């Protein structure tokens, strides 16, 4: 397998990934979200941890996710995030946009 470098996330896509991670309905804390993004993308995508928390915060302000305090698997206090219904709608819309964009770019690349 050829060595693939990790890609930095483009602005805006981090929001999409966070929303997608939370789609299962589970409440996750920040660490779990960043780990899940890395695992699912097979180490290709690395959420910049520094930008993850601002992103979480932004989404919370938009009302797309909701935060509550809970107890983590380590027995420590942690902040858990959960998708709201308006967040679900937003995710659907952004995912569609992304798919359309990706398809379009793919076509252009094939043609070239």
């Amino acid at each position, binding site marked *: 397998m050829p060595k693939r470098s990790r890609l930095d996330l*483009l*602005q805006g896509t981090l929001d999409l990934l966070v929303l997608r991670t939370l789609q299962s309905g589970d409440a996750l*804390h*920040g*660490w779990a979200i960043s780990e899940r993004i890395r695992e699912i993308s097979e180490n290709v995508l690395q959420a*910049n*941890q*520094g*930008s993850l*928390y*601002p992103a979480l*915060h*932004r989404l*919370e*302000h*938009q*009302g797309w996710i909701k935060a509550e*305090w809970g107890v*983590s698997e*380590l027995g*420590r*206090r*942690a*902040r858990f995030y959960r998708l709201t219904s308006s967040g679900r709608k937003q995710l659907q819309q952004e995912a569609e946009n992304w798919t359309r964009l990706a398809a379009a770019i793919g076509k252009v690349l094939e043609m070239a």
Partner: protein
Amino acid sequence: MTLTDLLLRIRALFFRARVEQELEDEVEFHLAMSRRQHLAAGNSEEEAARLARLDFGRVGVIKEDRRGAQGIDAFESALQDIRFALRSFGRNPGFVFTVSGTIALGLGLNLALFTLFNAYVLRPLSIRDPYSLYSFTWSERTGSEHAFSWDEYQQLVKDKPAFSEVVAVQGLYTRVEGHAILGELVTGNYFQMLGIGTTLGRPLVPEDSDAPGREPFVVLSYQAWQSKFGGRPDIVGSRILIRGSPMEVVGVAPRDFQGLTESPRDFWAPLSMAHQLQDGPDLFGAGHPESLEIVGRLHAGQSVSGAEAVLLAWSQRMTANLRKERKPAGILLHSHATSIPLTSELLLVFSPLVAAFALVLILSCTNVASMMLARATARQREIGIRLSLGAVRARLIRQLLTESILLSIPAAIFGLIISRLTIVAVLWTVFATIPKDMLELVHDVAHPVDWRVIGFMIFAALISAFLFGLAPAIQATRVSVISSVHGELNSDLRPSRVRNGMVIAQITVCTLLLIASGALVRTTMAISAFDIGFHTDHVIAVETTENDRRRVIDALSSDPGVDRIAAASSVPLGGLVPTVMASSQNGPTISTAHNDVSPDYFEMLGIPLSRGRNFTALEATSEAPVAILSAGAAARFFPGLDPLGQTIRLGTTARVVRVIGIASDIVTCCIAYGKDAALVYRPATASKTGNVLLHVRGEVETERHRLDTRVRALAPGAINDIHSLDQYRAMGIYAFRAASMIGAAVGGLALLLTLSGIYGVVSYFVTQRTKEIGIRVALGATTFMITGLVLKQSLRLTAIGIVAGVVLGAGVARLLASQMVFMRDFDVTAFTVGVLLVLSTALAAGYIPSHRAAQIDPIQTLRYD
């Protein structure tokens, strides 16, 4: 902003410590998890902690970032923006200077206008409670304004409808010690009601006007004391002659009080002196002459509309026994809080000036916006990097706007300095160019920088900051993150379109201003060159008091320097000619001006009688029922008929007069209105009527001074007014000269700003396309082709701007032409000169950068990238 967002922000604001703690807990938890992972991978405890922190980035930075996102620290981020902006200004002082200088030009001009407007219209007079002072009268059904008789004033004092205090005022215009003097006779409570004291001596008090004629006291204005009485320290107690009556100066008014009206008052004397000082029927006599104006102080808490209702009822009661047409049609209450009341008519008159000045400020802003845009484009890489690092666009726009506002601070300060210099220059110009007989009537009002001026300055500076800062900020932050990081600049950016739009707008405005001021200059030239139909040279007009008329005429007619003497009820070019409705038999009824003149009038002024004959001396003394018509009047009364021998009926006198001659048309009223459309001359003699006209042999101003002094020695105060007709003419034209001087200054400034604006844009265009031009040169383009390429760009914009400017200019010229007789709808010269000026400016501004473009060395430029 969503509701959730708002709630979270409010929470962050009020529970800051708790929110911060939560933030810390969250980050701490993340680090703990990260440490655990690194431990599991076989790192030592310390190594794991280090790696975790490394993964996360600098903890402090993240937290700051999140605080910014929470918007709880707008103040702190504003401080950051200011520090950042100041740092970048420090690196580029030339930019700061250019920007603030350009804005200051436009700002200073507007600030100067506002300062003067404030001084006359907004700044309250320095009297007690100026806002409750109102002048009161009513309009009669004939349309004329009512003037009060002494009895009516007495009744008003007794009834006090709506007013707690009232004063009666009567104007008095005369000459004292060789100076034109405009004073007021006032009731004794005048100073008391206004609540003002004196600089020297005492004010008038009610006891001064206890009984008619007993108390010859006068209070001078500070300015009159200084300019017309030499500022003598012993003025109080001395006597001056007003209309020949010795009056004791009892006081000098405060420096900041020159009466309640826009024309400055030189003195105040008790109204009880009216009998001695005024011509005509005795104010207190049986004739009950109506010649008083009323100013009163409304009761505390009295509304204007309430006062109007009360006063209407009162005026109806007062006029109950009068003829129908003398009954009140409407109450007129005018505020006396400021020198000139702020009315919609006033705003309408000043709106062209305000519009022109505002356009100059907009021009400055456009220039600066263009510079800011160029700078922002140069900073695209910086902005792109900041955006890709997660900076929020709104925050960046805010930061760029902070820069604009910071730049507007020195601009405001420069602007204030420029405005003070402008005012000094304007006043200097006025004093240097105004006809000197007019100078004595100019109100030299204080024009301080007060809170209103400062408020306007801040307001205008902020508006400018947004005008020149917002568009570039929005443009500049519209950056593609990826391409800017890769160094491919302005692929996605369309600043050129915005900038082109700004250049077009600039040229449009400039063309418009040049055309308008050109039309104004042309109008002034037309008025100055206008043939008024008679000779003004060597003619002096004298207005005497009725009592001394005989003596003055004897003195003047026996004077060796005077070779001819005539009389006219209205001085030609004097600005005032009464009109009357007149009709011919079976003919139309026409509103016509009329002037009673002596037979010498026509010969002295060189007005040819094209037909018929002049008045005879006998007709003049007997005021025979004959008339001479102006050619215009003859054509309108008797179209197609021979006017000689016909009769016309003159309005209210119901007198029928026979036409004995036709005189050429002249300007009798006002030079700005052109020749009188219709004018009827009636015979009169100098001994009975109006103004005396003198034809003198020597230099007219010397003679005027000599005659004034001579008559004064003979009969002090007998001359109310004495001017040469040349001065009357100059006074009639002066307003236009002043307007065209302002117009020329505004036009010149607009041209200068446009020059620098186009220069900036074309230079930028050349810098941007250096590579392309280099390639063109390498491929064999000649100097001529390159210059043409660049010039074509600027000329295309210029052409669009000029077309728009001409269309707007035509509209404005039409509007002005409908108000001014001498202004033409479409003055080809003004339009041509305006367009040529703009065009040559655009060419000049484009030529230098285009020339530079042609010098581009292809090898050099291609090697650069």
